[in-house]
């Protein structure tokens, strides 16, 4: 994808070069055709010089516009690349922090156990904490590695037709359990009897990331209300939390890759800036849309996911997703598609 894009910009660059060189040629031609009329004729033919003038004016203008458009496109592209580089540096700093913290903790416990006589009960606690830290490391490493798979678009997914409600209900419940939230903290309302095409593991990443955000950006105990609904064409899932909210300016940017909200009121500093980017990419691949809204500071935020209902909306796109998965299954033989995108 990225390779394709940079080729496109190389082409724009070459075309712009050709345009300005032609412009130069055209002007030189005009200069000579006016000042040095063909040898033999005593004076320039009025028709010829007239035509050369018109050609030089119109052609020159077109070429000039082409040059300036080409240059602006290149400038915009360079600018966006610079921004990505900057965000990437940020990302590296965040990932370093995220990787080193659990590692520091594991090392500390190992050295403690090695150098001190620790009572049995404490030993057990330390081991439990170390296992939690290593699980955290594993999750983080997996999620960084998986992004490459996600960016390959539909190839890595395992699409199947599901009835929406049981699938979503079980995923939300699993998510709540993973973040150790009791059922009353994650309430589910509404119903969704419609069918949709989805990759269970990918949707798990989506739901876990949204729950994770709600937990991280809640000042007190998190409180999440999940609302299912089947509209005319779309399955709609809303996650409403009571966290710190997202300012209007940030709402547009939270789904960008590596973007992180810098808010001194936010209770948490953990994160890589990838979570919501994956959410958007995964939902996009499913043919759906994700958006966020917030009433303002400390008013919580609402993440809204729309997925096309099977056989009702985006039929051709959704059927293609199913076909890609079927073809891949055939190619890999009886091997079930568990090697797709892993859950968090």
């Amino acid at each position, binding site marked *: 994808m990225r390779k394709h894009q940079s080729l496109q910009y190389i082409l724009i660059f070459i075309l712009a070069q050709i345009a300005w060189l032609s412009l130069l040629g055209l002007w030189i031609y005009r200069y000579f055709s006016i000042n040095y009329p063909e040898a033999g004729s005593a004076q320039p033919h009025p028709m010829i010089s007239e035509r050369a003038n018109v050609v030089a004016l119109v052609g020159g203008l077109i070429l000039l516009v082409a040059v300036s458009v080409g240059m602006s496109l290149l400038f915009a592209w360079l600018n966006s690349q610079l921004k990505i580089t900057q965000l990437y540096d940020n990302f590296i700093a965040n990932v370093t922090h995220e990787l*080193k*913290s659990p*590692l520091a*903790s594991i090392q500390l416990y190992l050295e403690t156990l090695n*150098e*001190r006589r620790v009572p049995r009960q404490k030993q057990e606690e330390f081991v439990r904490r170390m296992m939690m830290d290593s699980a955290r490391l594993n999750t983080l490493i997996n999620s960084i590695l998986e992004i490459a798979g996600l960016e390959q678009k539909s190839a890595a997914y395992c699409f199947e037709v599901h009835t929406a409600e049981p699938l979503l209900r079980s995923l939300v419940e699993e998510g709540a359990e993973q973040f150790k939230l009791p059922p009353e903290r994650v309430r589910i309302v509404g119903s969704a009897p419609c069918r949709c095409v989805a990759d269970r593991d990918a949707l798990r990443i989506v739901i876990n990331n949204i729950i994770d955000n709600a937990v991280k950006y809640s000042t007190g105990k998190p409180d999440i209300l999940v609302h299912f609904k089947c509209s005319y064409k779309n399955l709609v899932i809303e996650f409403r939390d009571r966290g710190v909210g997202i300012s209007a300016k940030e709402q547009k940017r939270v789904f960008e890759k590596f973007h992180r909200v810098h808010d*001194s009121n936010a209770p*948490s*500093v953990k994160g890589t800036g990838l979570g919501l980017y994956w959410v958007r990419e995964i939902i996009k691949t499913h043919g759906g849309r994700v958006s966020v809204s917030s009433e303002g500071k400390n008013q919580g935020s609402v993440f809204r996911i729309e997925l096309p209902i099977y056989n009702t909306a985006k039929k051709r796109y959704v059927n293609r997703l199913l076909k890609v998965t079927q073809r891949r299954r055939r190619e890999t033989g009886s091997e079930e598609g568990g090697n797709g995108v892993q859950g968090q």
Partner: protein
Amino acid sequence: MRRAPRKGETVFKGSKILLVEDEESLAVGLEYNLTREGYRVTRASDGKEALECFRSLEFDLIVLDIMLPYLNGFKVAEKIRERSPQIPILMLTARTAAKDRVKGLEIGADDYMVKPFHLRELLVRVRGMLRRKEWYRSSVGSAPSVRLGRNEIHFEEMTFRSGERMIRLTPHEAMVLKYLIDRRDKVVSRKELLENVWQIPGHVETRTVDNFILRLRKIIEPDPANPIFIKSIRSAGYMFTTGK
């Protein structure tokens, strides 16, 4: 040569440490180890809580993470320094960038450790910092300020006054000055400074001392290129004179 008030390690038992760390797992492990060393530990898990604890209780040392919710470690350190120039701060961080290190030390952290760290090293540094603080306090008590010509160094407030101008000294700067002034007209080697003020083995990084002295001269000397107070003694070290 060791500084005078060394009464054995037990002196620091019961020292009160404020541990500011938002990673619960790491915080629990550190608390356990510091408590086993005999310190009394109070834990805070974000910047705001850290400042609240600091304002309501007395501490002998602060272990401070940098990446903290609400208020980062740099800001916390700044606020703490405004109120208490002397309390030792050990910064603990996953950031490795040199500029973070420099920033931490400039704000007035006494020491800086990068995660993951070794338990033993951490404990040695904590002990060193407590010892240094104790030495500084007892030696400042006898002479809280020193006049240098028209200027004055106030060790308790950690300031340097030159007429209207006032410069805040970092704990390290104040300690090095104090150490040199206490031994005025005697040569102090780089090794000695490293071992007694920095609390690190004297065979490493003697250049640290040289750079540090350059900085000090910029603060206290009227003409840093021709020092009259802190003189270099060739192949021996430094000597403080009252500028005769």
